[in-house]
């Protein structure tokens, strides 16, 4: 398997399946780990870094943690490939844009991505479509156990797993769910929900995590504290309290829009379809914004020109790096918008 094979598919988290997938686009869990006998990356020399990379990569590739996938040397990878990894949510933006020895091990089905030398020596991540936190935890917990047989992780009895930034110390866990909340946005209830989430010490962000804007009504919710609560407690608070609550609000808002202003709702959906199937130049952000009402329309049974699988394919393949990979060449911004519009018109003509 190569990165090229990957970029032609949509990846696990965009399969559009799983619990509550009408609102929950995807879920993810990551664990932060560091080797006990090595400095953190801020003070590591470049030879420390290379040795850490080798030790961690060896442990991954020689065990079940990485045997079915590929190890990508991010430092050696070209810019477009790095961007592809970011768009597929396999590495963070910081990791793609970083410096020095670093990499990622990606499982064949893309449900697992182990980042080496990101902010910590190792970040074990698992991701899936829909709300599937229990399955993710089962997988990630096992990977962690397997790697702990080969690697000595920095751990302190009082503080738990030691991390480069003290905000991750303890379990080192971050649970994130990507939620599609177009109706809460339209009814202007979104800020109330976001505030409630923040009061619970959750981070509310855009699709690509820290410091990114909300595009296409996709909001990422994640825990911020990692000390004093077990992994299971954090996961349960998401899967049993937080997510079901937000999903309930969003569904109620969708229902109320369908009841009170069906014409307005349909108008939004079909206008968006009109833009996507007729535009001669369209940016990535506008594409995402237009796909949002269509995603909701499909789930509400108000739009049937194509299904969720097609929508998710368009969602991923119109992002800058994927689009350029499909076009087979690098494109400047403006040119890219024209190519994107052509791509959309062609794909939508096939489906209608």
């Amino acid at each position, binding site marked *: 398997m190569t990165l090229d094979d990957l970029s032609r598919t949509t990846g696990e988290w965009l399969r559009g399946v799983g619990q509550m997938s009408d609102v929950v686009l995807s879920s993810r869990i990551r664990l932060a780990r560091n080797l006990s006998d090595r400095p953190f990356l801020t003070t590591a020399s470049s030879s420390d870094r290379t040795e850490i990379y080798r030790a961690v990569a060896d442990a991954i590739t020689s065990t079940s943690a990485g045997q079915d996938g590929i190890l990508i040397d991010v430092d050696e990878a070209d810019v477009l490939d790095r961007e592809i990894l970011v768009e597929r949510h396999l590495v963070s933006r910081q990791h793609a844009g970083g410096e020095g020895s670093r990499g990622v091990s990606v499982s064949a089905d893309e449900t697992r991505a182990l980042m080496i030398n990101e902010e910590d020596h190792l970040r074990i991540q698992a991701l899936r479509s829909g709300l599937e936190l229990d399955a993710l935890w089962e997988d990630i917990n096992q990977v962690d156990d397997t790697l702990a047989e080969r690697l000595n992780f920095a751990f302190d009895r009082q503080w738990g797993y030691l991390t480069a930034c003290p905000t991750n110390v303890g379990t080192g866990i971050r649970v994130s769910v990507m939620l599609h909340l177009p109706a809460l*946005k339209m009814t202007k209830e979104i800020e109330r929900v976001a505030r409630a989430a923040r009061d619970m010490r959750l981070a509310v962000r855009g699709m690509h995590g820290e410091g990114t804007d909300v595009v296409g009504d996709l909001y990422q919710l994640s825990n911020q504290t990692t000390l004093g609560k077990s992994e299971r407690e954090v996961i349960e608070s998401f899967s049993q309290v937080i997510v079901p609550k937000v999903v309930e609000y969003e569904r109620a808002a969708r229902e109320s829009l369908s009841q009170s202003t069906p014409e307005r709702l349909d108008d939004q959906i079909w206008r968006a379809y009109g833009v996507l199937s007729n535009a001669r130049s369209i940016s990535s952000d506008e594409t995402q914004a237009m796909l949002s009402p269509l995603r909701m329309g499909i789930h509400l049974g108000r739009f049937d020109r194509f299904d969720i699988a097609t929508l998710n394919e368009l969602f991923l393949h119109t992002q800058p790096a994927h689009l350029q990979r499909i076009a087979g060449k690098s494109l400047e911004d403006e040119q890219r918008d024209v190519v994107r519009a052509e791509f959309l018109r062609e794909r939508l003509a096939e489906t209608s």
Partner: protein
Amino acid sequence: MSFVCQRCNEAKATVHITDTVPQKREQHLCEACAEKEGVIVKPHHTTNEILQQFIKQKAGVSVSDDATCPKCGLTFREFQLNGQLGCPNDYDAFKALLAPLIERAHMGATHHVGKVPAAAGPAAQKQAGLFRLRRALEEAIEKENYERAARVRDQIREMESA
């Protein structure tokens, strides 16, 4: 061209939106109003910003800011600047300075609860287990669930004598 926010009519509009659906409409808002309208959701604070904030709040209390980790050579001041520690030993070397910051960043938590690596040995596993149970006991008492409290107490005794 400079706009004044259409919502509060006070601050300078820095967020400009052109709606195309349901009809073409332009909006010019200041950041605060845009956030209230749900047009933008600010990333709130990045984790580093939160940490920096804690560090600043505590700055008056911190004393020996030239404390240095003997293993990696990082000084506490360097940590204050970028929010990143230099090596696992820093948690020991700067313990007195870090403890209040960690406590604040984690809503008052002072001890790890959860997974313990097998390599840390049974003693560490036991300690983490006991900590979790003691907290469960406190919670049960707080909620006046004495039946549960009694069960947890028995579990604690059992674990302590094991």
